[in-house]
């Protein structure tokens, strides 16, 4: 029994260490990711429920989709749930006391459409007014006063046109519309909905469901992403950049790491020089390379200096897509190769000196040592660097923006940005982000699987 044996007392220390990790993972990793994922496939404003009476407690008569055209049959003020927000369409109701048509005292509620305020207190509170006259032939000459600020309330009395009233109380009501429209399954439905969800047109008799208050899961945003005209150029460019940059980058990084590791004179100096670009933000690097390739930039100056060109060449324009790609490749190579190098250098340093000396002693030349000893032993480091770089390559953004403005050459991350900022479509932006995430995940799994299979084959 572990409880009876004091020497086998349970250690809680690991759990103290694990618990914050789990909390951290949940709060800063899992939760935002799930939220992002939901945003990509869930439309928060897809449906507008209609209710039988103008009240949040009313029975549902059906739902209209976002964007559905509606006929506005009527409107009514209604008590606002919770706090008032400024963008609500509202109307004021006044509680008035006056002498009624029949000479009796009247006390009740009337909407602002019926009362003109004539006298206000210093702070703007209405004090008194008159009943607005109804114009036109056959108009109802009397104005009803109601028991509650609600058009369906009991009538407590009537007032004549232009009757003077005293205002004792003011309330603000949200306007609800009674609308008729076609639901998703083609049925025509009628019901009430708060005016904030509906855009009205000039006439005031027609409108459109601006947004709904109910969500639904949908692949609409994902479809919109795939059908977006920038989607396939963005994907193709991203993959092309990756295919060009990664092999070059790894060759360069391995070369640089071997130089650093060779302990030449000033070897550590090489490390500093090579890792310098790590300190620069990708946007800064993009701007730097823009300064090189722009029409009055460094490259043109140098070409001009050596008399190689008559007039400045335009490298970064819609007609020179190849040049832009080339400039992006150069900028990315310059910027991101050092991180790969640092990973490889640390991998090289983990190889014991005696192992390399043994190889040398048994007759391996430098290149054979690289080929048969260093590269195989660097495999874990290379894998880490490859996964890291692939994930980052799917996210390439700032350099592309700086060199192409995000129009001529576009990449997946740029489309996420465009959807979010320019088109204000969070859901499609989220779909792009999730797409990038899935690509990264798939490539990592792919690399890990390949390495594992190789190991399995080798150990057989």
């Amino acid at each position, binding site marked *: 029994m572990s409880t009876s044996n004091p020497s086998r007392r349970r250690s809680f220390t690991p759990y103290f260490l694990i618990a914050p990790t789990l909390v951290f993972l949940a709060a800063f990793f899992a939760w935002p990711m799930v939220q992002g994922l939901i945003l990509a496939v869930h439309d928060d404003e897809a449906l507008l429920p209609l209710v039988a009476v103008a009240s949040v407690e009313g029975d549902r008569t059906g739902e209209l989709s976002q964007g559905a055209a509606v006929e506005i049959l009527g409107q009514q003020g209604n008590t606002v749930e919770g706090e008032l927000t400024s963008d609500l369409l509202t109307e004021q109701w006044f509680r008035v006391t006056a002498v009624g048509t029949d000479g009796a005292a009247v006390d009740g509620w009337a909407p602002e459409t019926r009362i003109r305020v004539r006298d206000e207190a210093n702070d703007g509170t209405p004090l008194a007014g008159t009943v607005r006259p109804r114009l036109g032939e056959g108009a109802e000459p009397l104005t009803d006063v109601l028991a509650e600020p609600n058009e369906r309330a009991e009538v407590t009395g009537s007032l004549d046109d232009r009757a003077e009233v005293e205002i004792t109380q003011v309330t603000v009501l949200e306007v609800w519309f009674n609308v008729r429209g076609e639901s998703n399954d083609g049925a025509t439905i009628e019901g009430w909905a708060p005016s904030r969800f509906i855009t009205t047109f000039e006439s005031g008799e027609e409108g459109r469901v601006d947004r709904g208050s109910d969500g639904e899961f949908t692949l609409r945003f994902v479809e919109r992403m795939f059908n977006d005209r920038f989607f396939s150029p963005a994907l193709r460019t991203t993959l092309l950049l990756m295919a060009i940059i990664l092999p070059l980058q790894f060759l360069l990084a391995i070369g640089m790491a071997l130089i650093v590791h060779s302990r030449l004179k000033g070897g550590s100096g090489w490390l500093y020089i090579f890792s310098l670009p790590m300190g620069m933000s990708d946007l800064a690097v993009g701007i730097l390379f823009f300064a090189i390739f722009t029409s009055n930039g460094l490259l043109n100056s140098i070409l001009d200096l050596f008399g190689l060109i008559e007039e400045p060449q335009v490298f970064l324009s819609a007609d020179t897509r190849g040049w832009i790609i080339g400039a992006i490749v150069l900028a990315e190579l310059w910027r991101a190769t050092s991180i790969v190098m640092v990973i490889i250098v640390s991998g090289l340093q983990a190889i*014991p000196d005696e*192992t390399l000396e043994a190889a040398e*002693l*048994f*007759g*391996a030349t430098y290149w054979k040592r690289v080929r048969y000893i260093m590269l195989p032993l660097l*495999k874990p480091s290379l894998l880490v660097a490859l996964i890291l770089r692939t994930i980052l390559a799917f996210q390439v953004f700032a350099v592309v923006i700086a060199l192409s403005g995000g129009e001529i050459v576009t990449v997946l991350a740029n489309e996420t940005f465009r959807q979010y900022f320019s088109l204000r479509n969070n859901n499609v932006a989220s779909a792009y982000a999730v797409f990038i995430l899935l690509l990264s995940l798939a490539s990592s799994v792919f690399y890990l699987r390949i390495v594992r299979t190789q190991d399995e084959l080798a150990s057989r």
Partner: protein
Amino acid sequence: MAEIRIENVTKVFGDFVAVDDASITVRDQEFLVLLGPSGCGKTTLLRAVAGLGMADAGRIMIGDRDVTYARPGDRNISMVFQSYAIFPHMTVRENIGFGLKMNNASQGEITSNVEEAAELLHIGDLLDRRPNEMSGGQRQRVAVARALAMKAEVLLMDEPLSNLDALLRLEMRAELKRLLREVKATTIYVTHDQIEALSMGDRIAVMKDGLIQQVDEPSTVYAEPKNQFVGSFIGNPPMNFLRGKVHMASDSVAVAIGGSEIVPSPELRDAVSSFDGRAITLGIRAENMGALNAQEANTVRVQVDVVEPLGAQNLLTVRVGDDTLKVSTHPTFPVSPGDELWLKFPADQIRWIDPDSGEVIAGGTS
């Protein structure tokens, strides 16, 4: 024929002289042990022979070739490293065959050499294993097999047994000795373990502070150390050293030690008498003194401090004035701590040492 001639080799790291003007000749097929405490330069000297650290001065010849500045791969040598340095990503077969492959040997030669070397080290059944699936002792065997598979004329070993546990070390020691007799390579073997050196080497080169102190056969190094350091470094227990004072007595010379007098052997009298009136150091091994219950000629009166029964012998720690001696006696010799007894110093077993230089004045036995 692969004689190794190390001529006046010096190696300096910054201000530190690791190897100072070392010269040794290792005869063809000889097993030479480089012995010394850590930091004495023995590994540095070995690496200079291997080509892994170039000598700053001097010359290294292997056979008739000057290899001082040759690349390690061009020296026709192979080596067993202290950490084994076997390649973790290769199978045992690939490890053993690596040197042959790098030297563009034919596939058939590689296969036969690998299997032969693996057979010699009894790892024939491990050929398809990887290093991380093997014990330390097995890795050690792989490292040796890899070195032997090269069939190089020169074999270098850098403390190959130091990472093994005591029992395994004992076993490998005997096995290595057998193997090296079989493969007939000229071998330099670096160790700090004097027992390894004594038991394995054809000759031992003792190093200290970058200097070679003595190069001789094990029995000579043991019995006739050239200086106080060699005597104290080799043997367990190490050689005893006593201070004495030389004075002329009537027609002869005698050395006073703790109230007794020791007379040197006739052939050394002149050498010792040159120290007349001065101090001299007397070196003698524990087993060369006789413990007696009564005074005789050339005996010294001592007090017993500790008695350690070791089975085949009893090791006594005794005191003479300020000096402490280790004496081994027959286990039946009756003695207990606090006893006083007489130690006989056979004149021909004594090494007389100049206390200023630490050098032996002249030989003891013939």
